């Protein structure tokens, strides 16, 4: 078991989770105290000792499911699977004609379950979702995978393709519609009232969560078979996904962006807390004589604890200037989210977006609770195109300097966001130099890998000399490091 644990810890480290030696030892210790047959208990014990951040939990869970999957199935005293089999038999009785068969685990399966026609399976699915019976859902998952996934042994894949293929064939949306129609119908016929919007919504949510359960069990079913086929280590290599903080912003999928958005929020809060704390903990103000004397009375007139006035805090002003042209489209979305997060924390944030023209968008973020709203309004209303809608940093900077340059004072920090790909226009780097002379800080966050900087039409080097720091910012981790280095 200890070897197994070491292997598992190695695997977690490979996926990027920071597991220290102490934590490994703790986990080994913890295993003395849990019932190893109980898989959930083991999972929570390992989770509590090895994973110290909630954003890592998903990666841990995936690894755990796979790593300990096969062992579960081959172990003796396997109640869970027996239960499923019992369910399968029960299902056979209640749904005559459904060709039952357990999946071909470890090559000893009794047939592939293909005796069940798609219609029967659809009916079974409908019944399962309607009743919400977990045993039936598990059965549907197994049969669906048998019937539709078209798994081919030995292929080095992570199973995502099989998963979507199964789902496509099941037509879950259709099932949901059918269920809702039926619910409306029953309500109307039983007491004459149509469903209210609230009831309908609750009903739909309940069904949707059951469908989600089904998706999860299909996914784990496919994973289990893949483990049986190729072994846990091989599969883990294929399904290893980056942690939220390691996702490349430029190439993030929609799901990944959502994960990013969740992770971004605490980061901006952290940034705010850090800056606020810095302000409050600046050197102490002048001696408060009155308070000191008063306090000294309790020590017999000896001023043991001198009291100081609080310094007058200076509010930092932040100018965020972001490129939102097509070449950085997904990064732009990310930056707008970041800007929104920052501006909800600071009173004095001015935000600007540009392509070849530039426009101030502070007003869109003010009072906007939902970043998506603000982003939509910016895309629709901001006037950022000057000639042809290709980035022109030179022109945007010049206009920025002409229109708002006077407002950049020694209290202002400027945060530039963009890849500095200028489409061979004039760079007008002198503008940035001038701004730097006036502003407190100028930082540049570049979403491109550092290796590409200065290649082609990238002129980051020309601008970079006028910035305090040019930082590669492709992942949250890099952004976090930038925030951390700000002090």
């Amino acid at each position, binding site marked *: 078991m200890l070897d197994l644990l070491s292997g598992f810890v190695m695997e977690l480290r490979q996926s990027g989770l920071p597991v220290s030696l*102490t934590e490994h030892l703790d986990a080994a210790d*913890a295993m003395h*105290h849990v019932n190893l047959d109980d898989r959930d208990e083991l999972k929570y014990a390992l989770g509590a000792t090895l994973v110290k951040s909630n954003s890592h939990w998903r990666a841990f869970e995936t690894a755990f499911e796979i790593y300990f999957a096969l062992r579960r199935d081959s172990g003796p005293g396997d109640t869970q699977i027996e239960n499923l089999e019992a369910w399968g038999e029960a299902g056979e009785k209640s749904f005559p004609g459904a060709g039952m068969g357990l999946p071909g685990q470890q090559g000893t399966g009794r047939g592939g379950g293909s005796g069940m026609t798609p219609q029967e399976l659809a009916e079974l699915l409908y019944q399962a979702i309607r009743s919400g019976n977990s045993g039936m859902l598990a059965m549907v998952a197994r049969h669906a995978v048998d019937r539709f996934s078209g798994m081919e042994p030995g292929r080095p894949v992570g199973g995502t393709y099989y998963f979507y293929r199964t789902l496509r064939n099941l037509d879950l949306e259709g099932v949901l519609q059918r269920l809702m129609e039926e619910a409306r119908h029953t309500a109307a016929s039983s007491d004459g009232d149509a469903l209210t919007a*609230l009831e309908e919504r609750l009903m739909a949510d309940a069904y949707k969560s059951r469908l989600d359960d089904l998706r999860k069990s299909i996914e784990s079913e496919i994973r289990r078979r893949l483990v049986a086929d190729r072994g846990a280590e091989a599969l883990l290599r294929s399904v290893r996904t980056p942690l939220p903080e390691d996702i490349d912003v430029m190439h993030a999928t929609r799901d990944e962006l959502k994960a990013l958005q969740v992770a971004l929020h605490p980061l901006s809060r952290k940034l705010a807390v850090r800056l606020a*704390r810095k302000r409050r903990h600046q050197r102490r103000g002048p001696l408060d004589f009155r308070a000191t004397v008063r306090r000294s009375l309790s020590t017999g007139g000896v001023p043991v604890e001198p009291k100081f006035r609080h310094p007058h805090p200076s509010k930092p002003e932040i100018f965020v200037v972001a490129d939102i042209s097509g070449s950085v489209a997904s990064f732009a979305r990310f930056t707008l989210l970041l800007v929104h997060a920052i501006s909800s924390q600071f009173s004095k944030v001015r935000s600007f977006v540009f392509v070849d023209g530039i426009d101030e968008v502070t007003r869109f973020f003010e009072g906007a609770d939902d970043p998506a709203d603000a982003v939509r309004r910016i895309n629709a209303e901001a006037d950022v195109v000057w000639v042809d809608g290709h980035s022109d940093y030179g022109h945007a900077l010049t206009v920025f300097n002409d229109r708002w340059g006077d407002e950049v004072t020694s209290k202002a920090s400027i945060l530039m966001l963009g890849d500095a790909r200028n489409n061979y226009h004039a760079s007008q780097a002198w503008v940035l130099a001038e701004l730097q002379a006036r502003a407190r800080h100028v930082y540049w966050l570049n979403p491109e890998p550092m290796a590409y900087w200065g290649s082609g039409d990238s002129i980051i080097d020309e601008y970079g000399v006028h910035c305090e720091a040019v930082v590669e910012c492709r992942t949250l981790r890099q952004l976090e490091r930038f925030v951390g280095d700000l002090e």
Partner: protein
Amino acid sequence: MSDTAEQGRTSWSNADLGIPDSGPARFESAHELRRGLAEIGYLADDGIAGVVYLADRLAKPVLVEGPAGTGKTQLAKSVAELSNSRLIRLQCYEGLDESKALYEWNYRKQLLRIQAAQISGGSDDGLRAASAAQTKDGAAWKHLEEDIFSEDFLLTRPLLEAIRADEPVVLLVDEVDRVELETEALLLEVLSEYQVSIPELGTVRATRLPMVFLTSNNTRELSEALKRRCLYLHIDYPGLEREREIVRTRVPGITDELADQVARIVQSLRTIELRKAPSVSETLDWARTLVLLGIESIDASGARDTLHILLKYQSDIERAAKELLSAGT
């Protein structure tokens, strides 16, 4: 003191060798713990019960994270109640220092003591006499020093109190993410070795290992060192079944039907993107309000009128009303 210190030392070195020794177990098993908590009105899930049980067996603190209002603090209170322990609570805030968290010398009393010694010694003038006494009579000064740095003049603060307690203790360090990184280091000695060093008195070791809970709302990343020493528990919003049970146990006089409806509506609300999703405590407030108002079944207008108890932002309320209560899905 030396006797108890000896005991503390033994248990510590055993743990060092990898032999778990955390004294008598407080709980039989994770399962028992879960049942016990349910009896006093805290419905834990398998994860929560498992981690708390493990924390007891491994003698490790538990770091509890999760959204606000999901029962992090309540967990510590309930565990204290279940194990018949005293709950000692350290509320963290920015600027918390060791004189507020660990111990402080009661310098006012010390000053008085010195002055009293001077008066009884017959000296007339304060400071000069003290220094004179120091040079003239070193023994008297030493005696005085030992006297004023004794336990009589020690003000114990929550951490030291938890360590020194003779009875079983549950220590709750609430909102640990509010203290500065430097102050966090203070906790490390206490949490990993259950001891406190006081320069004038020596090291105080725990006679009985307290159970320690730290809660965090995740306003900042805690240091790796602290995380390493803790078991990690993330408490999320409960699922439908558990939430329904929570409403049923915590709200007296609620019908099963209403509890079910409440839980389902709250679950639906959490799927909508809101600025602040309703927490468990808000769910309970809402359920209590409904019971007080005598509402037995929630309809659209009833929901709209009481939505402000669940949601705290006007924009959230509007959005929820739009999503949930207007026709058409």
